[in-house]
């Protein structure tokens, strides 16, 4: 009886995060008892993006796994380089109105025109001419991207390298929203 109540309460509980994700950060136990590593509560923000970001690291226990600091530091730096150099920088591309998303490796392109041509071919649309003042003129589409801070930015404003390093996903916006950008 009490158990069922518990289940019901959980279902209606107000908490951060999507339904279906479990908040483990409330469980506090002495570290040597049999328990899993806790996730820090910061992980809740990532739960929506779990499938596209790399797996979130668990809350770290001091000195575990037993890897020396020098090696840890070197590996962390190398991992950043390795994943993006060798494994490619694949980002999702969504197009308003399209039934499914695509993925492209933005490291394959050397500059904005290359990227935009590829997008045009992939989604069969045309993008217009970029200008700093007016964004993309001459079409109802505008390529945008989500940066590391989670903000949606117009593709083309920052230097290419900076874009490659900060782009998390792409979205090709269409229609009235685009006009909205143009009016700014």
């Amino acid at each position: 009886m009490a158990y069922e109540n518990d289940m019901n309460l959980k279902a209606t509980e107000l908490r951060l995060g999507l339904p279906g994700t479990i908040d483990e950060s409330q469980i506090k136990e002495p570290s040597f008892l049999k328990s899993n590593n806790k996730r820090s509560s910061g992980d809740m923000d990532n739960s929506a993006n779990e499938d596209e970001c790399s797996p979130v690291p668990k809350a770290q226990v001091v000195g575990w796994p037993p890897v020396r600091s020098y090696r840890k530091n070197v590996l962390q730096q190398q991992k950043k380089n390795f994943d993006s150099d060798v494994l490619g920088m694949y980002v999702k591309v969504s197009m308003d109105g399209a039934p499914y998303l695509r993925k492209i490796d933005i490291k394959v392109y050397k500059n904005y025109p290359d990227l935009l041509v590829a997008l045009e071919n992939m989604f069969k649309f045309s993008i217009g001419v970029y200008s700093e003042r007016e964004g993309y003129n001459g079409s109802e589409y505008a390529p945008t991207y989500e940066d590391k801070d989670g903000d949606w930015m117009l593709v083309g404003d920052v230097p290419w390298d900076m874009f490659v390093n900060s782009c998390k996903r792409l979205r090709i916006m269409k229609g009235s929203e685009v006009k909205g950008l143009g009016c700014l």
Partner: protein
Amino acid sequence: MVYSFPEEVLEYVFAFLSSDKDRNAVSLVCKSWYEIERWCRRRVFIGNCYAVSPQIMIRRFPEVRAVKIKGKPHFADFNLVPERWGAYVYPWISAMARSYPWLEEIKLKRMVVTDESLELISKSFKNFKVLSLSSCEGFTTDGLSSIAANCRNLRELDLRESEVEDLSGHWLSHFPDNFTSLVSLNMSCLGSEVSFSALERLISRCPNLKTLRLNRAVPVEKLASLLRRAPQLVEFGTGACSTEIRTDIFSNLVEAFSGCKHLESLSGFWDVVPAYLPAMYCVCSRITKLNLSYATVQSPDLVELISQCSNLKCLWVLDYIEDAGLKALSSYCKDLQELRVFPSDPYSAEPNVSLTEQGLVTVSAGCPKLQSVLYFCRQMSNAALIAIARNRPNLLRFRLCIIEPQAPDYLTLEPLDTGFGAIVEHCKELRRLSLSGLLTDRVFEYIGTHAKKLEMLSLAFAGDSDLGLHHVLSGCESLRKLEIRDCPFGDRALLANAAKLETMRSLWMSSCSVSYGACKLLGQKMPNLNVEVIDERGPPDSRPESISVEKLYVYRTVAGPRADKPDFVWTMDEDGALRFS
């Protein structure tokens, strides 16, 4: 009769004894042998710098030429020992500067070394030859300048894995132009760029140089020039090899390596672009030691390289090698004795590579001489451990780190007790063991029963109760070092086995359940032990006695409580009173 031999003859005979154990045994035969031996002992090893004082060492052994001293406990490598805990070398250097003018060698591990100490070394010992600082800290490149400038007969300068404050690369230029005695230089832990022309000139004028381990700042395009000047090298460590591949760099490198007919050991390879690895193929057949643990290279490229190293004895590599690569290793490298596989992404929840217990099982089956293993992985099974134990009863060192604490046998979800039990039962010569995964008191029963030659044991997140610790302390006859973290071991086992602690070098326990009261009792009962309570929450007697201490470090000593304790360390005294620093 033996006692009618003249002293000179005995001294001559004793000179052939290199092992400390033999020399110690000889010293116990009779008073005159003790006297003769102590005057002719030239090498002293001090496993714990606080077990004895410099004065005691000097008083007993007046004619020492080489000293090796270890400081902090091993868990300091994983940030478990707070900063400022101790292990300062200066008092040793200053005492030896007065009493050992002919000292030639100083080797230190996990000690705090200051620039002041280095300067004193450089000025006090006219015939100084060997300085080895392993996992040390506290000095800057200025200290290295003193060594370079003043040690005219220096043969070895080895800074492996030390934390050096890198002010500039200028220190290397302090070696005088007429300095030619260098045999070994390991600067791999340094960050700054040294003057390349100074390095070239140094290498050119030291014909006996056998070991050269560069730091990351030396780019791959400069390696050929260095190798051409030192074709006699036996051990070589590259710098970073990340420059985009160019045919001229590559062909220069091939030519330079092919001139090195004596190379046996390779290391470095930070950020290595895989296309450079073939430049080393010409030396592979002679290579016995390969450290690729900083090479973020995929398995196929690793296999290409390793498959040519038929004489490989020791391999350190990242888990990018994967099970497939380890399978290749086991078929190409039949002389393999030591394998270390490090994790490329230790903090990710999910495996990023296809490396499992299978890789280790395959190597244990295919490499008959395998005796030393360090393996990080994400899953393990009792079946695999049993297979490894049966395949390799000749194992001496077995350190397994399953990344998730308390991970069970992934096939049966049982604890890994029987697996590790098989390891200690079959590997009768096992000297070192590190456990991980889900473990109950059962595994300690097996260890206490079978691991009779075990000297060092490392535990984390293991066991159920004091019985576990009791099995180890009462059963492991050869145990010298025991380090434990986050295990539910408490007072009873510790106090019941207090006498055992005097037969060991040290015991470390952190985040366990040892009460302050028990620590006091232990300190009272055992005057030959330093019982150090390390607690950053403030004085332990400001809390109830039953509260567990954060960290406990117990070691045998003839030097009494140390005088250089920081404010978060308390030594439990014979009087039961606290000693403050």
